């Protein structure tokens, strides 16, 4: 890579997309970082033509004018990595945004890197406990795997991801990286405050490109966070937790600049490069013989439509998918996990054991059967059901309520202290419901409870 700095000149601006003219033959390469004269606006080269390169700005372009000089930096976007980052909050370029002074990292890495070789990748078969009942029972999360939390607007994705950080990051004890992509700034502020209060931040790195920032920043910050996690995995041989909230915003940011870059739109107006962009990111999140990255990714589902090209493409990359449903949220059940639409590759006898598997299957069957019966109930009423069906309905309603759980991070909202339920307890509790051991307890007792002992206690007060 040549370190010679070349000057070019802005000739065209359309939103975040800027055309710069460079001397012919001296154009910077794709993914190179260039900056304006005053150093205030950074841009990443996206397309290179003879003498003219098309860039995506990482900062706002308002007030920028044609003829402004632009300099090449001789390299791509490089971010600091390593121990100096722990406890810090950075932006897409790895600059601190927590007001705690400069970060003097010894090592910097390019955010565009190849995925690990197939030969060194390891499949994920071990389970990690989340303490959230419905997840541990029905969608066991694989250690070193990729986990998706799907949901439309306002069904509780961010709350659930915060709860996982609360439960898992603390128990995990290792390093975690949190990447905020295109989400609310308020949530970022609250997350930082929470992590500081609990001390988790000491072992964590946070990178933010929130929804107020231009598309270039939101499009690249996921890679910034990932690169920091990769360094911990590859160089420090650690098991890392990587949280991405929200991966859909990465695709969306790419979409925002796509047509301005001159690409024709594909299905539903998305960029034609959707699958590649996603592959470039997701394939790098992997577990290798050196260390592992377990990633939890929130996935926004636009217009509640799971068949939208973006969530549909993300689906195929994941080992476990938790789907949050608006219907369940409307019943007041949080976390609003859809027990039938969620799935994990680990929900097999050989991974979770005989009992866990049987209970999980029975829970799903009972709820499925209840859903089938709902139409009949709506038309004919409860009285017309057979005795067995009535029993199924009652158990299913208890199961549904029992899937709700007070969360630690929602305490301010619900007024209830959160509960961490260990897997064995979860399985045992659900087993007692499906086996009919607690048929006599009132439905209301199952709502917002921890394990089954909680329910029994609660029933006494009703």
């Amino acid at each position: 890579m040549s370190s010679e700095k070349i000057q070019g000149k802005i000739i065209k601006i359309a939103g975040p997309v800027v055309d710069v003219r460079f001397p012919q033959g001296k154009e910077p390469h794709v993914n190179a970082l260039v900056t304006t004269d005053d150093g205030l606006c950074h841009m990443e080269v996206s397309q290179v033509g003879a003498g003219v390169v098309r860039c995506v700005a990482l900062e706002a372009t308002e007030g920028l004018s044609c003829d402004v000089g632009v300099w090449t930096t001789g390299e791509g976007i490089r971010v600091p990595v390593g121990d100096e980052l722990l406890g810090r909050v950075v932006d897409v370029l790895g600059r601190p945004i927590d007001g705690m002074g400069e970060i003097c990292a010894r090592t910097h890495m390019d955010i565009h890197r190849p995925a690990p070789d197939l030969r060194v990748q390891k499949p994920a078969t071990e389970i990690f406990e989340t303490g959230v009942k419905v997840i541990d029972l029905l969608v066991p999360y694989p250690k070193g795997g990729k986990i998706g939390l799907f949901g439309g607007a306002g069904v509780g994705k961010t709350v659930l991801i915060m709860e996982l950080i609360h439960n898992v990051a603390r128990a995990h004890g290792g390093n975690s990286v949190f990447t905020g992509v295109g989400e609310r700034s308020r949530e970022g502020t609250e997350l930082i405050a929470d992590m500081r209060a609990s001390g988790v931040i000491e072992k964590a790195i946070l990178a933010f490109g929130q929804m107020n920032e231009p598309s270039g920043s939101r499009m690249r910050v996921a890679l910034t966070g990932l690169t920091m996690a990769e360094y911990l995995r590859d160089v420090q041989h650690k098991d890392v937790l990587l949280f991405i909230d929200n991966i859909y915003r990465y695709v969306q940011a790419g979409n925002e600049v796509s047509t301005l870059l001159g690409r024709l739109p594909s299905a539903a107006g998305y960029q034609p490069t959707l699958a590649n962009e996603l592959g470039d990111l997701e394939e790098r999140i992997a577990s290798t013989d050196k260390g592992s990255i377990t990633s939890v990714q929130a996935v926004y589902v636009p217009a509640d439509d799971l068949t939208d090209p973006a969530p549909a493409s993300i689906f195929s990359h994941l080992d476990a998918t938790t789907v949050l449903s608006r219907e369940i949220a409307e019943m007041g059940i949080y976390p609003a996990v859809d027990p039938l639409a969620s799935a994990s590759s680990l929900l097999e006898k050989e991974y979770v054991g005989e009992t866990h598997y049987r209970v999980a299957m029975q829970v799903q069957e009972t709820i499925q059967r209840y859903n089938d019966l709902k139409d009949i109930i709506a038309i004919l009423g409860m009285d017309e059901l057979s005795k067995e069906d009535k029993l199924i309905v009652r158990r299913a309603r208890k199961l549904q309520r029992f899937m709700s759980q007070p969360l630690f991070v929602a305490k301010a909202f619900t007024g209830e202290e959160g509960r961490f339920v260990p897997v064995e307890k979860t399985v045992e509790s659900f087993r007692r419901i499906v086996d009919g051991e607690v048929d006599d307890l009132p439905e209301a007792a199952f709502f917002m409870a921890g394990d089954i002992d909680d329910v029994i206690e609660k029933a006494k007060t009703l």
Partner: protein
Amino acid sequence: MATEMSAFLRKKIESFSVKPVVYDYGTVSRVGDGVARVVGLPGRRYGELLQFEGGAFGMAIDLEEDGAGAVLLNTGNAVSVGSRVHGTGHVCDVPVGESLIGRVVDPIGRALDGADIESDTYYPVERPAPDLVSRRAVDTPLMTGMISIDSLVPIGRGQRELIIGDRQTGKTTVALDAILNQKGKDVICIYCAVGQKASTVSAVLDTLRANGAMAYSIVVAATASDSPAMQYLSPYAACAIGEYFMERGRDVLVVYDDLSKHAVAYRAMSLLLRRSPGREAYPGDIFYLHSRLLERAACLSRERGGGTLTALPIIETKGGNISAYIPTNVISITDGQIYLESELFHNGVRPAVNTGLSVSRVGRAAQPQAMRKVSSSLRIELAQYREMAVFSRFGSDLDASTRKMLESGERLTILLTQGKNELYSLAEQTALLFLFKNGGFDGVSPKQMRLAAAEMLMKLHVMCPDTLEEIDRTGDLSDEAKRALLECIGA
């Protein structure tokens, strides 16, 4: 005086030096559909406000090698091919400051109600949102005066709470009532109209004036007859005007009425600029359009002066479908939503808040102690009532306890309704809910409930004004106050 004046003028004239005024200009080469192509204009800047010969304004939105594409802020045919254009040297901005209070302006700060706005401070309409460390958690309530909202979907200062519902469900009324309730609470209110009928805007103005709310309010209006670009700018301008006060430690409430029309105006503008359409023909950056606006609402840290900007954006749904593209986009930006339903509205439940679907993601933490004490079980009670009501429709024989619960639920639903512009103070709300919980309305038939509530309030104001005053002052419901309230109903 006169001599002083002429001396001043003489001095000015003598010291005035004649020098040429030199600036860049360009020429319109094509114009149509609210978009103009300009050639020349060497010093053009992205987002710059351009002035056309004859006084029309435009905004440079595509900079090209030999010129610029501009959207016109004026409608009509003020601009023609060959018209001269010059840059104003600044991006689109608005005057801000105390002098705007009580005024009606358009998105570039021109007065719509008489004399020019006098201000020497201008803010660009597009400004970056406060960063992560400049914010703090929302912790102070913004009371709306509506019992159903303050008890179930409380709003905190610095929060973004969406008001969503079909047409004719009272969205604007809810937003206006929230503004009216800020009287005497030292909150600057800004009502921003986007793409509304001019008659609607003037009705809003009448309401604000009639209730004395213009003393602390500002109206920013781009009506349906304004150009799409003007409508597009309107919310950003309103926000910039609000930010001036927020940055000076004040509390601001901004109502965006409504962002559905804003999205439509932006879609029109984008399509006319030949940017390719995506879902529902909206351009790809439609999310960023609203996210960068609503992110500017914030609760600033103490170091930044502690000011707040609360946003109440409004979205109009079609056929009650909140899962559509723009509604879900905005729901994913805001900190909760107040969902107004036409069925409720037509059944006389007003404000027509659907208590099941309405949530506030931060407000609970910012609820006054008194309200928290009396509203904690309301949500569950209402949810159970709704579920029970559905089941009871199948005509199964209802036992006495179920019937009692249904009646109580019905009474509660009615207690949560309120007439237009009829606002309750914190103490009144707290007292009503507290007494409801403690049997103060038992046995009242649902039909009589509205009347009973009104009578109860009158009784309280006569019998224990001190208690009400104490609740309002402390924001808490002491045991003593509880006793005093119970005494009033003779319990």
